[in-house]
């Protein structure tokens, strides 16, 4: 585009643009159009607003479906609403007091520990396969597909599939019997085993997501580094610890934050498979029961707010304890 405006630099001007030209190019205010057409002020405003229009849709949806319900949640949490009554009575902080004083409400966080520990296994498996498949492996795309596949299945379907798997005499027991396990435990009926079974299902489901995150991060590491390491005679194991792990540390950190928040708010798998019975109720299931079985939506809202606060605090602590260092591979 030629820049030739009255009062501007000549055609063979240096690379630096003159002030009005710069204004036209970056600011959008054009003297020339101003002179030609009087009613362009409106168009100007429109032009200024254009980016905001693009934002408005996204921000509007965000406000409507995230912040607005969240505000409502705070409002319900200070009332004694039962979920249907047209009247909501203000009760102040009573619900919060109950959340923190009723031992039955907080005791279920013990169940989250199973999922928390299982998330370590989940990371390890995902990291192992991501590393393995980032090098050239036979059928690597097929294996990538297989590993990611569980994450694509609907959680409800997974619940039902594993329900059959864990049935007495079901798939798992049959497979184990091939290996001579004659007396398998009741995978869901035994209170000592049930949470491990459920956590195992959760691992099966979410490993694929971690795997894809790790794989993406590993592949963003420049290939020359491996070549250089190869030349220096580094083993695969050394390459992993010196290049891959530091290179994807941020993603691993992020995954851990997600894992902790996730294990505090486990829901679908235990809800579908056991309905929270046999000591497998998690905090979210309990919140749901409080709201819809006992019709104490006020108290349940307070529980939800407390869960939100706990997740935020834990994330914050995690960021403080493990600060986000810049990754530098060079």
């Amino acid at each position, binding site marked *: 585009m030629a820049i030739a405006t009255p009062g501007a630099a000549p055609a063979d001007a240096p690379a630096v643009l003159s002030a009005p030209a710069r204004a036209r190019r970056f600011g959008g205010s054009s003297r020339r159009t101003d002179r030609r057409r009087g009613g362009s002020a409106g168009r100007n405003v429109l032009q200024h607003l254009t980016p905001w229009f693009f934002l408005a849709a996204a921000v509007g949806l965000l406000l409507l479906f995230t*912040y607005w319900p969240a505000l409502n949640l705070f409002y319900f949490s200070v009332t004694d609403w039962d979920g249907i009554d047209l009247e909501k009575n203000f009760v102040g902080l009573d619900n919060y007091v109950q959340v923190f004083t009723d031992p039955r409400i907080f005791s279920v966080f013990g169940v989250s520990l199973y999922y928390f520990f299982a998330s370590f296994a989940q990371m390890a498996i995902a990291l192992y396969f991501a590393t393995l498949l980032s090098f050239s492996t036979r059928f690597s795309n097929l294996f990538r597909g297989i590993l990611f596949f569980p994450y694509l299945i609907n959680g409800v379907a997974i619940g039902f599939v594993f329900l059959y798997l864990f049935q007495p005499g079901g798939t798992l027991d049959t497979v184990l019997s091939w290996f001579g396990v004659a007396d398998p435990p*009741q995978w869901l009926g035994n209170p000592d085993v049930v949470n491990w079974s459920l956590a195992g299902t959760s691992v099966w489901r979410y490993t694929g997501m971690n795997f894809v995150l790790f794989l993406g991060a590993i592949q963003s590491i420049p290939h020359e580094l491996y070549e250089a390491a190869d030349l220096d005679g580094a083993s695969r194991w050394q390459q992993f610890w010196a290049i891959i792990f530091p290179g994807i540390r941020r993603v691993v950190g992020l995954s851990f934050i997600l894992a902790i928040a996730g294990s505090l708010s486990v829901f679908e798998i235990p809800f579908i498979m056991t309905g929270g019975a046999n000591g497998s109720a998690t905090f979210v299931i309990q919140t749901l029961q409080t709201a819809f079985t006992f019709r104490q939506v006020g108290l349940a809202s307070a529980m939800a707010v407390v869960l939100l606060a706990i997740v935020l605090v834990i994330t914050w602590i995690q960021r403080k304890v493990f600060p986000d260092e810049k990754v530098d591979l060079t």
Partner: protein
Amino acid sequence: MAKKAFAGIALLATAAVAISGCAGGGASDADNTIDGEVKGDIKVVTWRTDLVEDGTFEKYAEEFNKEYPDVKVTFEGITDYAGEMLTRMSTTNYGDVIGIPAIKPDQYEQFLEPLGETTDFEDTYRFLPAASYDGTQYGIAWGGNANGVVYNKKIFEEAGVTELPTSHDEWLDALQKVKDNTDAIPMYTNYKDGWPLTQSFGNLGAITDDPDAPITMAEDPAPWTEGTDVYAIDGLLYDTVAAGLTEDDPLTTNWEQSKVDLGTGKIATMPLGSWAISQMQAAAEENGGSADDIGYMAFPANVDGTQLAVIGGDYNLAVSKHSKAKAAAWAWIQWVVEDSGYTEAQGMISPVLDKPLPENLQGFEEAGVELMEINPAPAGKEGLINNVADDSQVDLYGPIYRQKLVDIARGAADGDKESYFAELNERWGASVEKLAG
């Protein structure tokens, strides 16, 4: 800049809160009453998705139109009726004819059109108390059930049980015989699905012949004490499970399969309402059994040798307060309750007093079981038992506390019958003191 934007969002949010606070409320049209002209469009929201799909409702609508040609009836079936309907109640658009979901009696006036004084209905209909508040009737039951136990006659014969059990001990003996002499599971809890566990609670009142049992319980600070209805009901469940007379792994039960298993004799008994009989018979026929194998007995308890069975209404049909054709909706309810033939087809007790008992309860008459109805709660105490249950988080109408009971009985959770009943009494008692005092 960031601060300004944030303030703007906050302002917007505050404004939205303020605006929504003013929303709601509906104008009422003087002509639009239940006594008005029968015309307009009505939408019937129902839990019987099966009858919507197989066209039974369409046939009802055709019949109905012969009498009231100016009404257009449409149907909507909801699978999770009990749950979804409660959520819908927060809008003003939840259908014209609905089955009253689990809202409390003192909330009826917020959502439902009053149908008249309860006393005016007493000569015509059964099962009125559940849909009545403060002397006003809000709904009519669409059918009624007796409460008791479905069992497989063939298995009982095979096991050598000749007399139906009429007490706690006879029940355990009979089931023990089933366990010893047959391959059937003596009693199936349907623990995983949850709601079947709650069905035996319908026997409240039958054990002690107390037609005011819900109020008695709501005012008793320790109802899980020997001699009460709920002690007998929950105690029976506990002892049956503790004696190993139920399925091995309760966490993997399956309601649909259990119907087939009872029909074909893999399961001997299930405590369910009499509505289940026709479903069990159908399952038996479809899977090589016979409908005649399915029997129904009263809860194993007796008062001086007489067994009692509580009969009560199913969902109550009601007119939405926000309906635009209230007269048509009310006409539909009256027609469907009295003339549709629904209760006969389903083997349920008709809410109309003149109509005879269904065939499947004839076994009751032979066994000399007396039917009883629960009395309406006195004014001001209509929702008391629900309020106490909610406040104490002992879900009488839900499965959670009974699943725990089963867990303790099968040794999967700490405690025993005494300790758990003591805990229930403590929780219940605290709420009774707070709400009923």
